[in-house]
């Protein structure tokens, strides 16, 4: 790991370790869940060059299945989260198979439309509880032993899930597989001419991204003890894009910073009323026009080291 990244990672770990003592733990857990979600999204957009506008489907289904497993089937929280992740994996494989047939904008619109179908399904299916959602999901006990009801205990589990996911993504990006992905992103015909079956690579990246988004959704369901239609509706897909864009597309730490800013903004703006959507829109426009590289992207440009 290059030095700049190592320092950044150390800072991140230090922040995660110190945060629950300084900040409201539920808020930090929310940041971590969304950060993992945005990182998963960034694997596709930043490293494979695929803009998915339908990641809410994987996040939401992960959230629903985890909540259902914990509440109805009585799974322990770690098994519930795994259930959510597996659901998202299967869904990602099916949708990815369809979506990777097209590129660029087409890809974005197809993922969006498929995600809308999932949303319709969730509105209808009895197990999701319709507009009430799945409520009062038990946080349960880790491995059946450690009671996760106190925020402070749960926090460390969420932190561990986030770090594991984050390091896993780091590993993917820096593996030979990740290198091929980047090659496909930059010049797909050339990658194909070199003998790489680009569709296989894209599909695998899609599935991995969906799986981690599902785990993020599942963890969120355990933290907030609810899973609802918000998790699976298209503005949630927009949020992943927003966080990644704001933090820096194709940077390792960008989505984390983006998630931190957006979640904070939502929490703070909640006290000020009606301007949330307008401000989110302004951030989108400002990012696209003024600093496309995002916060971390600009930073790495300044220090000339990848972050």
């Amino acid at each position: 790991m290059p030095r700049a990244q190592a320092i950044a990672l150390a800072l991140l770990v230090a922040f995660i370790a110190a945060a629950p003592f300084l900040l409201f733990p539920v808020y930090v857990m929310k940041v971590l869940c969304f950060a993992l979600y945005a990182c998963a999204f960034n694997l596709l957009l930043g490293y494979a060059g695929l803009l998915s506008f339908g990641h809410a489907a994987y996040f939401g289904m992960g959230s629903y299945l985890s909540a259902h497993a914990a509440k109805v089937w009585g799974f322990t929280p770690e098994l519930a989260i795994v259930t959510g992740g597996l659901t998202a994996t299967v869904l990602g494989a099916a949708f990815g198979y369809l979506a990777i047939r097209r590129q660029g904008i087409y890809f974005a619109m197809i993922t969006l439309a498929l995600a809308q179908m999932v949303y319709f399904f969730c509105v209808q299916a009895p197990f999701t509880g319709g507009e009430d959602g799945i409520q009062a999901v038990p946080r349960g006990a880790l491995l059946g032993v450690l009671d996760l009801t106190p925020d402070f205990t749960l926090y460390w589990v969420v932190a561990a899930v986030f770090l594991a996911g984050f390091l896993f993504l780091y590993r993917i990006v820096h593996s030979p597989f990740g290198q091929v992905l980047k090659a496909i992103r930059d010049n797909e015909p050339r990658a194909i001419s070199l003998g790489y079956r680009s569709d296989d690579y894209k599909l695998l990246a899609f599935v991995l991204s969906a799986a981690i988004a599902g785990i993020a959704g599942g963890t969120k369901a355990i933290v907030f003890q609810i899973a609802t239609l918000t998790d699976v509706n298209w503005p949630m897909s927009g949020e992943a894009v927003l966080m990644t864009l704001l933090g820096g597309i194709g940077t390792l730490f960008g989505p984390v910073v983006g998630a931190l800013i957006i979640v904070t903004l939502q929490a703070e703006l909640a006290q000020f009323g009606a301007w949330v959507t307008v401000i989110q829109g302004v951030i989108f426009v400002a990012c696209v026009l003024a600093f496309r590289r995002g916060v971390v992207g600009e930073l790495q440009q300044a220090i000339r080291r990848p972050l």
Partner: protein
Amino acid sequence: MSELWYDLEPFLQQGTLGLVNGAFYAILSLGLAVIFGMLNVVNFAHGAQFMLGAFVAWMLLNWAGIGYWGALVFAPLIVGLFGVVIERMMIARLYKLDHLYGLLLTFGLALIIEGLMRNAFGSSGLPYEVPEAFRIPPVDLGYMLMPAYRFWIVVVSLFVCLGTWYAIEKTKLGSYLRAAVERPKLVQAFGINVPQMMTATYGAGVALAAFAGVLAAPVYSVNPAMGANFIIIVFAVVVIGGMGSILGSIVTGYILGVIEGFTRVFYPEASATVVFVIMAIVLLVRPTGLFGRA
């Protein structure tokens, strides 16, 4: 005969009503296709601009006393002008970049426009009556009674769609436009102002959306979310028709409206999903869409 007629009647009714929905799909997807075809920008703000058309019609009526017919002309002009300003100030800076950024920018614009309208007018919507000229008894089609205004929607949308198609495919100006898309530098060298043409195209596409908004105001709820409900279906229509294909988006718009109508006869619950199912099938069989070139 009468029994068969009774069985057929619902299909005729729903098919006819579906054509009205198809008219909206066609105008909206046409605007998207024009903008995408010429500018290579996916205009996510299209739904918001549709909504603005309806709101401007309301403002013209309530603040300036300009009725429906005036609104049909002025609202597209006003909103189109707004589109021109946006294109000059923002979108024009993005042509050299990946189209992803155009999509993200217009997505942000849609959020801003919707949020501002909500702050200004609330969320429940505004009243807009069917224009005086159409408050006549509905037309008896034999199998159903059709309000006159719905006829007007179908007729005027066909007229607008075919007009646009003609302007792009058959006129000299249209040929410049198409040439500018293929070889902008060359066309510029012939003394045609390409950036200006792009601006005008975006303005025209936005005006089409606003025109549909004015058409919709008397029949659909005029509220800040009215466009967001449409935009995703219209995206699917454009994908099915083949992105950038003008004729494809028009024909697909009407056909999907009718298919949606038929679905409402035997399985109404699925009528909103059927568009996406068709899209998935089309993509599997013909990834370029029904009318798209590979």
